[in-house]
């Protein structure tokens, strides 16, 4: 069963199909894309339920404990005296990735639904969309650093074009900014990756390897190599391992995004078309968090422990800073973009606590934010597609005009601000609890961090409620006058069919968090064990 490969390459297959379709069938392109994503949802859903749990399926640093593993030799170069350069097509999933995998496929399906609004150059759009889809899923599955990097980079270009061609007014600026930001990180990631490659040997074949799992075992590092744990090598006067960690962290922190590396995000979100915003917020940001866990923390656990204070600090700053900025916004999409910065700060805070509660909470937060931010951006897109305006002050009293839409807005807003019953509550609560207990469990984070972080919950209530009050309640008054009134129709079937699953997922995860926690527990425990 090559189900994982099937999952990864399904979009590619459909993409090829799409490219072959003649242009007079252009109305069917979106259905092709939707079909691809739905197939993915089914596949990943099936995998989710097949996913086995227990002490023998922890994953993390045990290759044999991953599931749905596929391994095939991909690039094999004989380097003479240096042995062989062995790059594998090595994919598999464990507790860290399974949830994200499923979430991503759902978000992708929603994004496909959101791309109905695209009117020009459909073939190009959907081809790039499916390419992006493939890359995203690939990142979550790859266990070979090289493969990971390939998929990681492969996400960049489609996004660049998706933002740059189909984006808003300042799309070029946003696209280039996004591109350079992320590329900056990934180029240095490449150097570290190669450095790791030369430091790590396969215990069986004695060749150098890109295998991430081998990289997690300090015994596999060659004697005296750059990143060897025992060698204490220095680069530019800094400990090599710390430097590598920082470089990798910066690469992923740009994705997350962590303040002060976040400024690409508001611009990219604001300019991107709705579908791309959904993917950006729902999936792309999670890749940052996932990368930090899978790569930074797993390979350099001792650096992660040593630097936990600073990571936590960055997390807290992101939470507060993002929320404060969101409070100052007048553009709805920008507001939500900043709220993403704030919410992803919880992920970083939870992760850096290195407690089971914190990491579980952070993972939960990633899933939850995936669903919710997709929903939020979809909702913004609904308004934007109707009147092409997002300025908060231009709207008032939408609740009377669009009652059902308002219901979904309220669900999304309240779920995002951590109303119990929705996933974000459990996620944020446990991220904070993890950060707080860290002081007594491993002494990494001082307890004031969790306290400050919880202020973020308060601020998120402030900006979401302000928006609700300002835009949706009160007498209906629109800057666009009567023409807007007729344009602002309530949501239709397509929009509902995207929004209802998202709200249901947020709700179900909030009521039965065991659905997630039972799958990730073993992996999280193993990860925490790695830090000791």
């Amino acid at each position: 069963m090559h189900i994982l490969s099937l999952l990864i390459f399904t979009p590619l297959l459909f993409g090829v199909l799409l490219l072959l379709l003649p242009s007079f069938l252009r109305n069917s392109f979106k259905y092709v894309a939707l079909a691809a994503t739905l197939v993915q949802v089914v596949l990943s859903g099936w995998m989710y339920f097949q996913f086995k749990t227990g002490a023998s399926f922890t994953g993390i640093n045990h290759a044999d404990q991953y599931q749905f593993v596929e391994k095939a030799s991909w690039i094999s170069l004989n380097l003479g005296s240096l042995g062989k350069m062995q790059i594998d097509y090595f994919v598999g999933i464990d507790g860290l990735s399974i949830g994200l995998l499923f979430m991503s496929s759902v978000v992708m399906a929603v994004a496909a639904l959101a791309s109905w609004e695209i009117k020009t150059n459909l073939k190009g759009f959907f081809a790039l969309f499916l390419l992006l889809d493939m890359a995203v899923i690939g990142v979550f599955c790859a266990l070979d650093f090289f493969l990971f990097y390939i998929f990681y980079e492969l996400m960049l270009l489609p996004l660049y074009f998706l933002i740059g061609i189909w984006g808003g007014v300042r799309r070029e600026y946003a696209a280039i900014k996004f591109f350079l930001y992320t590329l900056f990180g990934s180029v240095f990631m490449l150097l570290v990756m190669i450095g790791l490659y030369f430091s790590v040997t396969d215990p069986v074949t004695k060749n150098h390897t890109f295998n991430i799992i081998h990289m997690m075992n300090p015994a596999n590092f060659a004697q005296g190599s750059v990143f060897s744990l025992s060698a204490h090598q220095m680069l530019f006067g800094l400990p090599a391992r710390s430097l590598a960690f920082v470089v990798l962290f910066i690469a992923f922190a740009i994705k997350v995004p962590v303040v002060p590396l976040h400024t690409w995000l508001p611009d990219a979100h604001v300019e991107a078309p709705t579908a791309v915003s959904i993917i950006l917020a729902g999936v792309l940001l999670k890749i940052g968090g996932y990368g930090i866990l899978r790569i930074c923390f797993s390979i350099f656990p001792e650096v992660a422990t040593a630097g936990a204070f600073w990571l936590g600090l960055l997390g807290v700053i992101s939470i507060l800073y993002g929320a404060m900025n969101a409070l100052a916004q007048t553009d709805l999409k920008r507001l939500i973009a900043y709220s993403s910065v704030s919410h992803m700060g919880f992920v970083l805070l939870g992760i850096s606590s290195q407690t089971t509660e914190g990491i579980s909470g952070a993972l939960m937060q990633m899933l939850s934010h995936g669903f919710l931010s997709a929903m939020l951006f979809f909702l913004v897109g609904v308004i934007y597609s109707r009147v092409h305006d997002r300025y908060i002050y231009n709207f008032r009293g939408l609740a009377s005009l669009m009652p059902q839409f308002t219901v979904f807005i309220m669900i999304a807003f309240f779920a995002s601000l951590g109303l119990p019953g929705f996933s974000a509550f459990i996620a944020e609560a446990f991220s904070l609890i993890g950060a707080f207990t860290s002081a007594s469990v491993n002494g990494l984070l001082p307890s004031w961090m969790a306290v400050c972080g919880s202020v973020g919950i308060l601020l998120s209530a402030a900006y979401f409620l302000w928006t609700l009050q300002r835009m949706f309640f009160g007498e209906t008054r629109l800057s666009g006058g009567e023409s807007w009134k007729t344009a602002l129709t309530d949501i239709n079937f397509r929009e509902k069919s995207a929004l209802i699953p998202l709200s249901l997922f947020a709700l179900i995860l909030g009521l039965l968090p065991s659905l997630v926690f039972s799958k990730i527990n073993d992996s999280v425990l193993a990860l925490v064990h790695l830090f000791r």
Partner: protein
Amino acid sequence: MEQINTLQNYSTEIQLALTAVLLPFAAFIINFLVLKTVLKGVGILSVFCILLSLICSGILFAKTWNHEPLHRQILWFQIGTVKIYAGLLLNNLSVLMLPVISGVALAVHIYSIAYLHGDQLYNRYFRYLSFFCFAMMALVVVDNLLLMYAFWELVGFASYLLIGFWFTREKAVQANKKAFIMNRIGDLGFLIGIMILYAHFHTFNLITLFTNPNNFSGNGLTGTWLTVAGLCFFLGAIAKSAQFPLHTWLPDAMEGPTSVSALIHAATMVAAGVFLLARVYPVFNGDVKMVITITGTFTAFMAATIALTQNDLKKILAFSTISQLGFMVAAMGIGAYSSALFHLATHAFFKCLLFLSAGVIIHEMQHLKEKLHLEIDPQNILYMGGLRKILPVTFITCIIASLALIGLPLTSGYLSKDGILIQAFEWAEGRSFFYKLIPIFILITSWLTAFYISRLLFKVFWGESRLQEMIPTFQFPASKENKLFTWPMLFLSVFCLFPVFSFNPLLYEQSWLFRGFLGADYLERENIYHTVIPAAVNLFTIPVIYIAYLRYVKQGISWFPETGFLFKLSYNQWYIDRFYQNYLVKIVQWISKMLYQFDRKVVDGFITFLTKITRFFAVCIDWADRNLVDGLINFIAFRVRDIGSFARGFQTGKVQQYLLTMLIVVLSIYIFKILI
């Protein structure tokens, strides 16, 4: 639903509790699914569910009161190695709250059918109301802090929805936002409190946390963290129970329908703060209790003074509520645990009744306003007067409820309030003067209470209608109180009388409710306060009421100049809300604006700056490539020419320049190499 199945093999008590809690939820769900159709049946369904719920809680109450606490739980989820359970804890506290809530809720439900009649959001209203009842009842029965926090927030959410029920009114949506955010501040405290306890004990379970007496002494959680935890939980209570300084949301919350105010902002939700204090009582150490006492007393006093001068009918009641909650909180602080809960229960009924009455009055005034096309605020008591003629039932129930609020004998309020007063004096005995201030202020407050509620009654029901001054030909229409209004009110007024709680109308110690919360170490009446205080209170209350009568009915004496500082202070609600609006909110907004500018200019600017630098660097290189290197060469070449004094005009061609550059570089490398 899953819970029901797995719990079937548990005792009937648990099943009853679950049924009681989940029935309103079922009503909510069913209502939610019939989203589009406006049906009368929606209200009936909710009423029916809450009635069943009341019956269940009643049976449960009878079965469980003064029995061993019942506790059942199922595994909710596991995080790492820590198992988190969801469960029910049925002790005296929770089984008392259940019927109180469902009882009051039933009354309000029935009342609402008439009150909201004709509103186009009628079924949405019942949806929210059912949801609130579910959340509130769940809050009181759950067995762990996490779930408690969850329902705590959901209650706040329901309150948010209901305050902003008429969402087209700007003031209403301002008010619900304010309410939610202020409650969020409290939630934050609650959450941090939970975190502190979890960090220490790795459990959320109330029983594990609070039944072991060693948890908060010796090797348990002590010292600063214990104080902080206590303060945090208290912060939660402050916000929910509208204590100073987070009380300002409650008066604003009166923008919601009056029936909602009756249920949520008088009887149940605001009492949740006190309930929380009761649930986590062992956490509070001496210092925190002192803080609680002072806060409660101050709030009670302050709110009472504000209530003296307000003209909005509902605002007066709101401040009265704040004041009464202050009583309860103060009682918790001085250790009068059972009295506080007793007062909570009695207050729920009489304050709800007062609000419902107010609702009828406002309804009537609104009716008049529309009929006569007047530009008046239907809630302003200055326009009322003489209403006893057309609203006789309301008049009677209102009197009963007011007497209970004042705490005159034969009412339930007398029993519970005297308990607090007496215990306050007992507590202060043997301590310094400073401590004595507490009971004294409580005493003064109770007199103030008598005054403001009398003022309200006299203004509203006595005298002639003020409308006659505006329209001389004004005649009251015939009395037509809706049965759906009067029956619930009469039902509630029964609970304002003493027999429900005690067979002895004068001694609160005899009350079954009071005894239900006593520890084993309770001492029987031991000193003089038990006789002196009630007498003193009541004896002085009568003149107060009389003064009010003179002042407002007879227009006789005027003791309060309406221009004095004290009046202004009171009328403007001690300027607290204005302070928040003008300073705190502004400051937060300013900070976020600044941060945003910082983000655009500095953080983003830095990146732009980097890009610019790169670009600048490129320009430099390019320039240097073209000019500097070439220029240098030119310079050297010119020197060469001068030295060789070539007469011929010298023009380096481009190609030659290239070559020259190349050569110079090569030579300089060479020279450099030789030199080192």
